């Protein structure tokens, strides 16, 4: 099984749709921990992405994802803009001029994208951020592929690990970003960044395993 360029485009569209669907929920989560704008900002950025996606739809996967990244950087604002923007820029660079992806390509792209988030945000896992969903998602993808699981099964497990990682942010103490100002009061709330990051991996799994 390979991931076609069309599937990559479908993933971005599915991510935009999921964020639109959960816009209010993301904002509610952010109201408890930050400044109540995560849903609106991500939605605005992804709508801008959809506007530009058709213009690059016949290009290679690297170009498509870098366009997504630059668009998010210039339209989301907040911390999510540079973080998601850097994720897609690095993942796009890792994809290069490919027109379809193998399981190993996707693993390397995800790894590069997450490294970009670490560089930009200077965060580590366990600090109640999007890394807490993406990190387990990456680990599980890698482990599943190594033990010989087919890609669609590895993607499902990866999304499931991201969901567990997202839920595991509830009891965490925030030490990065605006939520860190709350100190102990950040405990007991699910992190909005981890939630949108789960949607990112969940839509990838759902889109790419559909019919598989």
């Amino acid at each position, binding site marked *: 099984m390979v991931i076609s360029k069309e599937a990559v485009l479908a993933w971005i569209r599915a991510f935009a749709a999921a964020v639109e669907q959960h816009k209010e929920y993301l904002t509610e989560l952010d109201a408890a921990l930050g400044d109540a704008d995560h849903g609106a900002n991500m939605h605005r950025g992804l709508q801008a992405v959809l506007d530009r996606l058709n213009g690059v739809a016949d290009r290679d996967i690297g170009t498509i994802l870098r366009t997504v990244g630059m668009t998010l950087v210039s339209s989301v604002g907040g911390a999510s803009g*540079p973080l998601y923007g850097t994720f897609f820029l690095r993942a796009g660079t890792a994809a290069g001029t490919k027109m379809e992806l193998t399981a190993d390509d996707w693993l390397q792209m995800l790894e590069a994208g997450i490294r970009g988030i670490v560089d930009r945000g200077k965060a580590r896992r366990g600090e109640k951020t999007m890394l807490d969903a993406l990190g387990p998602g990456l680990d599980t993808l890698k482990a599943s592929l190594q033990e010989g699981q087919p890609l669609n099964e590895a993607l499902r497990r990866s999304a499931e690990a991201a969901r567990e990682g997202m839920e595991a942010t509830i009891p965490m103490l925030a030490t990065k970003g605006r939520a860190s*100002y709350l100190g102990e009061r950040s405990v007991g709330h699910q992190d909005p960044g981890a939630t949108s990051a789960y949607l990112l991996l969940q839509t990838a799994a759902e889109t790419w395993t559909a019919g598989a």
Partner: protein
Amino acid sequence: MKKLINHPERVVREALEGLAAAHGDLVRVHFDPDYVYRADAPVQGKVAVISGGGSGHEPMHTGFVGQGMLDAACPGQVFTSPTPDQMVEAAKQVHGGAGVLFIVKNYSGDVMNFEMAAELLEAEGIRTASVIIDDDVAVENSLYTQGRRGVGLTVLAEKIVGAAAEEGYDLEQLKALLERVNANGRSMGMALTSCTVPHVGKPTFELAEDEMEIGIGIHGEPGRQRMKLKPADEVITMLFESVVKDLPFQAGDRCLLFVNGMGGTPEIELYIAYRKAKALADEYGLQVVRSLVGSYITSLEMQGVSLTLLRLDDEMIRLWDRPVKTPGLRWGV
């Protein structure tokens, strides 16, 4: 929610259109990407001083663009950091060949977006320097958190550094001055009511009729403590003591005392606050040689107040007194 707006999504744009219409002699407004810049920019040979941040804190930063203060300001959406393309385009518009100084408040979004902008500008051969303002004593600093927030001191820093840039300080001198201002200033705020972000439509936090939040941030982030409302003098004493003990300010220090309104506090209450803060400064033996009272760094319609103390030296006093001609701050011209 009651607000004097047309549409939540057009708040920032329409406010910028109003700023341009009202102060066309001082500033110009560029849209897409959005930035406000000095009408006489670029000033050749001068370091361009640029700041920015989420909207909703007006007059900071857009109202501080003009002679003797900022060369450009990049407004984000309400309470949301601006994006790197805004800072890059603003910098190209106003830089006069002597580099660009970014004044950045310590919020993760602002820091990351300015950092990306600086990388992009360096790649194009424009020199930049950045200083992060983090004066809010309500937030405990630690290696493991984002650190202290940038609040009231930002206003004073933009005035002092803007005056120095106008005098011809170079990029390194300005950076050192800005770091010195940041090292000598401390702030803390409180709120009586929440604020409502227009596109969210409901209050950012809930505060009962008889409660207040001590140590509030300028986006309605919770502070140190929620408690029963107390008389103004007791509230100001709590803020003042937290601020003065943090640096610590010491007897004999020459200071600027800044009492700031959060947007929904009438000036009459700000002067009640100033009266008490000045009395406390006298008790501590501080020499308040300069003052500022008014709503300069706000949180939309939040009711509340913040106190900022800045320890001054001769150079800072001279620069504070220099002429400034912006929509939000104007003297000596």
